[in-house]
């Protein structure tokens, strides 16, 4: 399937010498799954950069491909999924002087195994089932340590485990507990502790708080923020709830239909969203400082495999033009607002005008 859009802008391909080296760079990634009808692309050319120590939020509705993107970058795609093109580059801190990134997608064997968790760790959505029910959590933490260095003594593993559990607020006394003895919140904190055990430079969090109640959710988010600032790892935080990112993220990327719609520092995104979809998302949840009608986005997101031609959002967009149904716009930098903001839209919202950019409850634009 040929991409029906313009090629990516030149700024994404090369890395200007003056810019700081990022931790992780996803370049024009395409990921597909098997199906009887052939390959179904779920991620359709997404480029994303994660700076050192940054917390980047990736927001989007279910099925937009954000989870798939994360799994692909972490080399955790199931056998039915595969990367069809693109690159995932990782710049280890230690090797920064050399300037050569690690091609994550081409790692094999022992190199891949060592890359896992030491460089890139992941916190999954459902901690309910993410912990082995028959092993104590201390053992599961120790597993991660010893998988990468057999020489570490059991005592050292225990100490490290205790240190981490204290760090996340579970308590060192829980080293010998089994997963079923912990509450949902504590289990998720344990997942967090486990992710940090090898001091990774990158942590991908795939909806880590979705399965928790709101109060616990808040605590975990605060915990994540605190840990990140203390230990300095970069975070890719994936969620369908944009509101969570407002206090959490440095930058936010919005995904829809397998493509990035907008990417900007969080204040710019919230203050002046350029993409109609972003604006709609921002207006779909209540905030303290604004009093307005909640607006839902009419229509439904397209299922993978049946994306409309051109921009996937155009059937639900109030600002859609004729071009929108023909060609997908590339992610272009909004120089007017700041060099760090980009949007993929033929008819983005001008900086001053923010309200009224969405159809209320009506599907499809002409």
């Amino acid at each position, binding site marked *: 399937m040929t991409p029906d859009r313009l090629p990516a802008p030149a700024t994404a391909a090369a890395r200007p010498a003056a810019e700081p080296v990022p931790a992780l760079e996803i370049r024009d990634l395409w990921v597909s799954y*098997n199906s009887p009808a052939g390959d179904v692309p779920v991620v359709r050319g997404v480029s994303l950069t994660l700076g050192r120590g940054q917390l980047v939020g990736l927001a989007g509705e279910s099925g937009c491909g954000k989870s798939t993107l994360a799994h692909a970058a972490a080399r955790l*795609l199931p056998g*039915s999924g595969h990367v*069809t093109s693109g690159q995932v580059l990782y710049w280890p801190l230690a090797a920064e002087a050399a300037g050569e990134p690690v091609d994550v997608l081409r790692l*094999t064997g022992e190199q891949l195994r060592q890359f896992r968790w030491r460089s890139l760790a992941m916190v999954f959505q459902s901690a309910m089932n993410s912990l082995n029910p028959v092993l104590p959590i201390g053992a599961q933490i120790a597993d991660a340590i010893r998988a990468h260095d057999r020489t570490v003594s059991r005592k050292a593993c225990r100490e490290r485990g205790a240190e981490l559990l204290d760090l996340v607020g579970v308590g060192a006394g829980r080293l010998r507990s089994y997963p079923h003895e912990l509450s949902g919140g504590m289990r998720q904190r344990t997942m967090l502790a486990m992710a940090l055990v090898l001091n990774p430079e990158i942590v991908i969090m795939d909806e880590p708080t979705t399965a928790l109640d709101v109060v616990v959710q808040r605590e975990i988010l605060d915990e994540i923020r605190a840990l990140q600032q203390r230990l300095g790892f970069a975070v890719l935080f994936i969620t369908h709830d944009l509101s969570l990112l407002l206090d959490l993220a440095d930058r936010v990327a919005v995904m829809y239909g397998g493509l990035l719609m907008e990417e900007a520092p969080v204040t710019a995104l919230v203050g002046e969203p350029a993409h109609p979809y972003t604006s709609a998302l921002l207006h779909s949840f209540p905030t303290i400082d604004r009093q307005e009608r909640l607006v839902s986005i009419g229509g439904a997101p397209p299922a993978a495999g049946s994306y409309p031609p051109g921009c996937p959002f155009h059937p639900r967009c109030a600002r859609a033009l004729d071009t929108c149904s023909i060609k997908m716009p590339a992610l272009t930098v909004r120089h007017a607002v700041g060099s760090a903001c980009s949007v993929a839209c033929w008819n983005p919202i001008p900086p001053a005008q923010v309200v009224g950019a969405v159809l209320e409850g009506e599907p499809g634009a002409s």
Partner: protein
Amino acid sequence: MTATAAGGEAIAGLNLEPLEPSRRRLARPRGKSLAGLILLGVFVIIAIVGPYVAPYDPSATSGAILQPPSAAHLLGTTQTGQDVLSQLLVGCRVTLLIGVVAGLVATSLAVLIGVTAGYLGGIADEGLSAMSNIFLVLPALPLVIVLAGYLRGAGPLSVAVVISVTGWAFGARVLRAQTLSIRERDFIKAARLKGESVLRIVVLEILPNELGIVISALLLTTVFAILTAASLAFLGLGSLSSWSWGTMLYWAQNAEAFTIGAWWWYVPPGICIALVGTALGLLNLAIDERLNPRLRYAQPVRRRAATAQGGPTAADVPALTSGAEA
């Protein structure tokens, strides 16, 4: 530096549900059930027409003693000159009949007790479960032997009943567990609120959802029954008056066919029993895969997907481990 397809095995541990089933993978359960059905069908046909197409009367003796297979006797003869092929063909009916009757009776018992226990809950459940657990744990064959010993000389039907008495417990336990979980589902609660009678709910709402398990239990119990009946007959406890594959083996053992190497006598009945068991087993596996979607989708070992620009594909993703592959 191209990526090597090290090891070749796809990530074994990551069977995330694919978006849609691939045509290639769905062939697996179909293959099993087709093979099982065909195999079973062959034997069912033999059971029906066996007595009519058998070349000789299985009990008819003759002077041709212990003959290896020949034109006149395709599977040779026994120690008393009886035709082995005829015995095999005629015996199929009784063997299958005992198995099917025992399977049906045992499964009916299992449905009755298991679903009742699961649905009623409380004391009735405790009592019925205790009873099925006891029958489950009591060793079946010794009990069957003792019972059959007392009922010596009774027909194949008694054998079937005796086997059913010992074989229902396993199905009952599974059905009880399933009924317990279905009972809490919303559509059942809705039916109860509507005031539907218990019988209606059980028969029309619960049982259809358990059909797969009931069939699976039926298949497994039938296999168990056939094997047990054969063992009984072999021990001389079956009904020696009617021909079955187990009876054939009893007479073969009696005449020391095994030591004198009269393989044409004892190999066919044994293989036939195994084949019927295999047929039922394959059908059961196919149903298992149908009920448990996780068993359905196998990852292909090596994916040679066409890629847009020769980039990495799943085939390049190595096995989970470190140095397992070069």
